[in-house]
């Protein structure tokens, strides 16, 4: 059984809103991304994992515990960053953090202080007086300082500036090295690509694809783009029989797909041609997803 297992989860709010038959398996130590556009059902799925709402059908189990029935028990292992952040009580950020660490029964104030410094957070401010970014930072500190085995985060980078986002991504990498299991939703594909091991794509409440990021990051089939100086050379290259994805005859350009094992062969062949340039075309997750969405539509 997987560390976190979502089975046939269905919650129908009517009028096509809700999630339908969502099934995911998240392994221990994995960083799992959950992407989709706004309203796709990311938050609804996460609320089920936290036991805040009850499924119409299916179930979520975390560490073998039912997330709905044993909701309080599950929280021993889980830290959470909500999609919309507001802190209870009328206290300062520091007081809230201390209280939360105490209530969670794990984590340390020292770690929280490290994180506060790293994120340049003024935690002495009242939680109600905080800006969106400050709240987000406080939420991140809360989640990471409480040292839980599982981190469930609903769009944790919203409200962070690019610099802070990088720091946050580094922090997540640290957590991953410690063996933490991380589940995060996002609509920013770049950050997902940077850190996630696997990514589930949700659209209109249904999982349409689960992508293993290794296949994108370490894809041995690469695409190269080249431009020839003469039309003669251009035509001669085409006749060599490499797998050509696309040609642009007016610019004398060719897009070649080739496996890493054959790269030397290609370079040898190209020696005899007069080239303007030669470069690898990188495939990004974003391009990939865009393709997936296009196909689906």
């Amino acid at each position, binding site marked *: 059984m997987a560390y976190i297992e979502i089975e046939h989860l269905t919650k129908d709010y009517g009028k096509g809103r809700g999630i339908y038959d969502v099934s995911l398996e998240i392994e221990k130590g994995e960083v799992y991304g959950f992407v989709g556009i706004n309203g796709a059902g990311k938050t609804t799925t996460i609320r089920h994992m936290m036991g*805040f*709402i009850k499924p119409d059908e299916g179930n979520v189990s975390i560490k073998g515990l039912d997330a709905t029935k044993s*909701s309080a028990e599950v*929280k021993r292992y889980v*830290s959470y960053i909500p999609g919309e952040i507001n802190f*209870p*009580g009328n206290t300062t950020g520091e007081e809230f953090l201390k209280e939360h660490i105490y*209530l969670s029964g794990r984590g340390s104030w020292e770690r929280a202080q490290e994180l506060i410094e790293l994120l340049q957070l003024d935690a002495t401010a009242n939680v109600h007086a905080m800006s969106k970014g400050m709240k987000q930072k406080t939420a991140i500190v809360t989640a990471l300082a409480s040292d839980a085995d599982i981190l469930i985060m609903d769009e944790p980078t919203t409200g962070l500036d690019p610099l802070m986002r990088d720091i946050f991504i580094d922090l997540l990498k640290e957590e991953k090295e410690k063996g933490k299991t991380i589940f995060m939703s996002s609509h920013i594909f770049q950050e997902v690509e940077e850190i996630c091991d696997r990514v589930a794509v949700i659209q209109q409440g249904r999982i349409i694809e689960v992508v293993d990021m290794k296949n994108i990051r370490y894809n041995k089939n690469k695409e190269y783009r080249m431009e020839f100086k003469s039309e003669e050379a251009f035509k001669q290259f085409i006749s060599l029989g490499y797998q050509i994805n696309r040609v642009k005859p007016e610019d004398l350009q060719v897009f070649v797909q080739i496996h890493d094992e054959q790269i030397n062969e290609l370079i040898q062949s190209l020696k005899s041609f007069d080239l303007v340039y030669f470069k690898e075309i990188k495939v990004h997750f974003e391009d990939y997803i865009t393709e997936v969405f296009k196909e689906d539509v």
Partner: protein
Amino acid sequence: MLSKPILKQSIQANWKLWLIITIVASTILSGFIISYDAAGFASIAAAAEGTAFSNILSSLTSLLGSLENFYKLIAVILGIVYVVFTANNLVVNEVDSGSLAYTLSTPIKRSSVILTKSLYLILSVTLMYLIISLAGLGASQLQYNNVTGYPITDDVKAAAETLNQEERYLSERLYLIQEDEHAMREAAVARDMDTEAYAIYLEDLIRNRSYKEAAEIITDERWDIYEDDDDMEDSDIEITTEELLEQPEMLLTSNDALAAGARIHGISINDYRELVVGEIDALEVVEFENTEPVEEETPEIEPVETEENQEETDETNENEESEEVEETVVVQDTVASTPQREVSEDNAELLLQTVIDSSATALDINSEQVRDNLTFIKDPTALALSTQTTGLNTDQIIMMANHAMVSSARSVDRALEFDVETYFWLSLGLLLLILAMSSISFFASTLFNRTGLALAVGGGIPFAFFLITMIQQLMDSANGLEYMTITTLFDTDAILSSGEFGWGLVALGAIAFVLYTASNILFTKKDLPL
């Protein structure tokens, strides 16, 4: 199941409003009690007796009765303000803002979250109204000393100064005033009486108190005897002061009761026993007389028109009663020593009014002044005119004046009495009413996920109840409105008049219990948008 951190958090978030409302309500109640004008209300009520207003005013003739508006309106609206905002703050506000997500992302069960929050609301309301009640009790005690002892009235204060005694000490030993002529004079002036009337009043008061204390002791003794007797109703066991006044012989059977009575009089038990025996004999004589055939009770009266009298009474009595006067008016030139007519219950009030008006005319002051200080009646000039207009002799008029002074003083005393039991039921009823209101707000707060909706329903319903009550109080008539508000279940009239009010309070408690329980179940099962 109770979560201490949640309780702490609830207190931190809500103590300010709690404190403000508690202070405001305590201050208002204390203010009502301290500023209660016993003499004023007593005289208004006496003036309105027999008119349509007497029913409305009757509740004002006692200190607790005058607090009805506090219990029905002021304390209720303050309570509503507290419970609506707090209930909202405790649950729906945290759901709507999403801050509950943090509480629920720790290993605290939802059920203990909601239980703790319900208990916070229930306990804070209970504590609030306990403090308010104690403040009222304290104010009354400080102002009138009427909670733990006998009220300290103006005469006691004056006498205490003269005798150089503690007011409270003296209020329990009124016989000390009787023993000192100077103190008697000062005390009488303080109560707008002359010494003669005051002596009667004081004697009457001491006698009543001794019977009251004796009756309490006899009741206690009877409780011990009949406690397990199923045939005896509670009311059969209890001996009231009135019952004892009718049958003083009961006193002779209990040494403790005799001792209590004797202590009030400041005499020995044996002397007191003799006093009681004397009263028993007197009662028997009266009974004997009453059994005699009554034939010549009313002496012959020769009604003669008196112009002056007619004019004067017309000024004050423009109703049908003046016709009665017409019939019973007496010859003008009566000899002072022989009464031409007798004072009976039917004409006493009217005669008194005539006497007051005559005195006012004789002394050239207005009737109100005379009513405020009835000693004016005893002024020789006033007496002369009064005897002329009423046909009563001076002794009768003086007796009447004394009687009027004593009874008005007694009604002021009664107005200042503080019945702890009634106060307890008023306070408990108010608490239950507010708890029922709070359960409505709390239920709305757990039912809805949006603050606005929860506030509209959870605040709107209690506020509607309050408005209906207010309209009802203003119109002072029942036109079905009383069935539309739960405040009817808290029947202050019934509590003040020792009527039947228990089931209403039980119903209020039941409403609170059901709605709080429902809230707890609902919250543990519902979907939370966090």
